[in-house]
């Protein structure tokens, strides 16, 4: 019998047709849209005089440009307001389910999909957002697409895609104290570089991955794109089923039993062949932080920035340009450096478990005077739980400012921006130049490291504080 990977099993059952010497016509089960990458797709549908083929397969929410204060009021920024209003208009016109600002399930698209139980094993899921890879944590093929492809999905529920190569990354063993799933993925990217998985779809496996919660798995799959991968996925197991059971859109009753029986078949066969396999030891992973301007530029918090030894030409120039932007020198330590902002949130680490972790660590402490601390729940549901569990009080007592759900300071297209030249230690996913605001200097880390930095005001290894 043919041995298949999890990726093959899902991909092959979604191919409507293979174009000779071309891509596959690939069927999409679920499509998420938001206000930024959808308006031109809808506009083009109108120009072509066609509609949305399967509206019930698309779900919408505004998240990228929304303010994170006063969400019950009209959006002040005119262009942001227009985009959000356009989304409302389009959803009403084409009968698409919208989780609008202020509604019970509003939030970042990659947080609400799993929360609602829309995201399920075996599905194909796309969204005009590269962090769609998040949904792969459920054993789904999920990836980001461009606006032309958003238009294709709306019009036909298919896109034209060439099948990616397959990579398996296994992390074996037990994670040390103070080491989180964010550290796992920052470690992997630092080892293989920001382009190390380009052309591949990655399956994460191994005992360290299997031991993780769904929230932690989502953090890993979320950042697959930061090493260039088309997406990442993890075989569904009891942890997955337990998370989904009872969720709004999860199957119920006999359908549930049937679904679970199918989901249990969604794993890579023993002996299946990957184009590339990598194995890491969990014990080698320490709390991580980035020092440069792409997510591959990461080191352990207690480490030193690499020197330029062995680099030459444009490689060396690009490296020095990056360090110059960050205000760092080759070879120096990052620990102890002063920080101005901390940000907890985003589709990477804006879930309830992340907020719990930060609250648990800062309880009874005060943020340092030099720190502005923002905590932004990924959704209304997360916000509600944080209030109910008393986490908001703990965080506010520690000097954190709780804001309303949205992408917030992850990408500087709303009001939450880090000022030029300032250092932000952030739980988000990208440390690109200007990502958090023009001139802003971003260092990516786990919620625990961010909590430690908030308290000390400096780059700090969380294991030394708590």
């Amino acid at each position, binding site marked *: 019998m043919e041995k298949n990977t999890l990726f093959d099993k899902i991909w092959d059952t979604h191919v*409507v*047709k293979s*174009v000779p*010497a*071309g*891509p596959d*016509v690939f*069927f999409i*089960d679920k499509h998420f849209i938001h206000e*930024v*990458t959808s*308006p*031109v797709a809808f*506009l*083009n549908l109108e*120009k*072509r005089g*066609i509609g949305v*083929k*399967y509206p019930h397969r698309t779900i919408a929410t505004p998240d*990228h*440009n929304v303010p994170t204060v006063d969400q019950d009021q009209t959006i002040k920024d005119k*262009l*942001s307001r*227009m*985009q959000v209003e356009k989304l409302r208009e389009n959803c009403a016109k084409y009968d698409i389910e919208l989780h609008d600002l202020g509604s019970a399930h509003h939030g970042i698209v990659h947080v609400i999909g799993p929360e609602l139980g829309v995201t399920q094993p075996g599905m194909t899921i796309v969204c005009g*957002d*590269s962090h769609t890879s998040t949904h792969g944590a459920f054993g789904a093929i999920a*990836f*980001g*697409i*461009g*606006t*032309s*492809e958003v238009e*294709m999905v709306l*019009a036909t529920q*298919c*896109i*034209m*895609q060439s099948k990616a190569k397959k990579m398996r990354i296994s992390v074996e063993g037990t994670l040390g104290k103070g080491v989180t799933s964010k550290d796992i993925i920052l470690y992997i990217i630092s080892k293989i570089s*920001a*382009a190390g998985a*380009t*052309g591949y779809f990655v399956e994460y496996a191994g005992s360290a991955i299997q031991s993780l919660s769904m929230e932690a798995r989502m953090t890993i799959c979320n950042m697959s*794109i*930061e090493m*260039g991968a*088309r997406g990442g996925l993890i075989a569904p197991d009891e942890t997955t089923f337990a998370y989904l059971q009872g969720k709004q859109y999860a199957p119920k009753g006999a359908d549930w039993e049937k679904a679970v029986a199918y989901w249990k078949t969604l794993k890579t066969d023993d002996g299946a062949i990957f184009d590339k396999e990598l194995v890491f030891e969990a014990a080698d992973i320490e709390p991580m932080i980035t020092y440069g301007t*792409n997510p591959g530029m990461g080191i352990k918090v207690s480490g030193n920035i690499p020197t330029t030894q062995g680099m030459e030409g*444009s490689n060396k*120039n*690009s490296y020095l340009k990056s360090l110059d932007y960050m205000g760092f020198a080759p070879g120096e330590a990052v620990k102890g450096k002063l920080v101005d902002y901390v940000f907890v949130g985003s589709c990477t680490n804006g879930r309830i478990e992340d907020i719990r972790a930060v609250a648990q660590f800062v309880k009874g402490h005060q943020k340092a005077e030099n720190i502005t601390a923002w905590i932004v729940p990924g959704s209304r549901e997360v916000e509600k739980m944080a209030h109910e569990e008393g986490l908001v009080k703990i965080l506010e007592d520690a000097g954190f400012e709780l804001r309303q759900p949205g992408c917030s300071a992850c*990408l500087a*297209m709303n009001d939450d921006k880090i000022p030029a030249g300032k250092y932000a230690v952030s739980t988000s996913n*990208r440390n*690109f*130049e*200007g990502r958090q605001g*023009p001139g802003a200097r971003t260092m990516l880390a786990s919620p625990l490291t961010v909590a430690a930095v908030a308290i000390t005001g400096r780059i700090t290894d969380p294991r030394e504080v708590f």
Partner: protein
Amino acid sequence: MAYDKFTILKSKAVPLPTENVDTDQIIPARFLKATEREGFGDNLFRDWRYDVEGNLKKDFVLNDPTYSGKILVAGKNFGSGSSREHAVWALYDYGFRCVVSSFFADIFKNNCLNIGVLPVTISAEFADTLFAAIAADPTTTVEINLPQQTITLLATGASESFDINEYKKDNMQHGFDDIDYLINMSAEIEGFAASR
């Protein structure tokens, strides 16, 4: 929407050897707020082209009158990060019809092909040859021949072939897009959808 046909392009080229240029550099998120596709070229490489006061940064290649053309020759791992198609719209709107690099990020490359900007992947050695030739003579002409799948420095004849799948090549040469193809097979897709 259907786009410009692409067959043979002869043009000067603009060099940008920086590696890992992500789509946030090509167009920062704060300029993604339009609900139409026009006008993104003004903000192409915004924070590298302008300082915070909006003054031109003279040392950036797009602000250097020495260089111009419809071809951008970029460093390794070009277009990483965000899936924003706006990055390609900005390149197109500015006037680029072809981007050349030794390594492209996947989603960016797809987005290019979907709107008719040709991504040409070359070897690292040929990238070095191109950068050196453009540095020596900024008016040097580069020929992109899609039917032959070749990129050539006309002055020296130095040339390399590049890959593109037949389907996408045909689309580029005729200015077709994927939606035309998908709509033509809607009966087949409907049958598939009904089985799910």
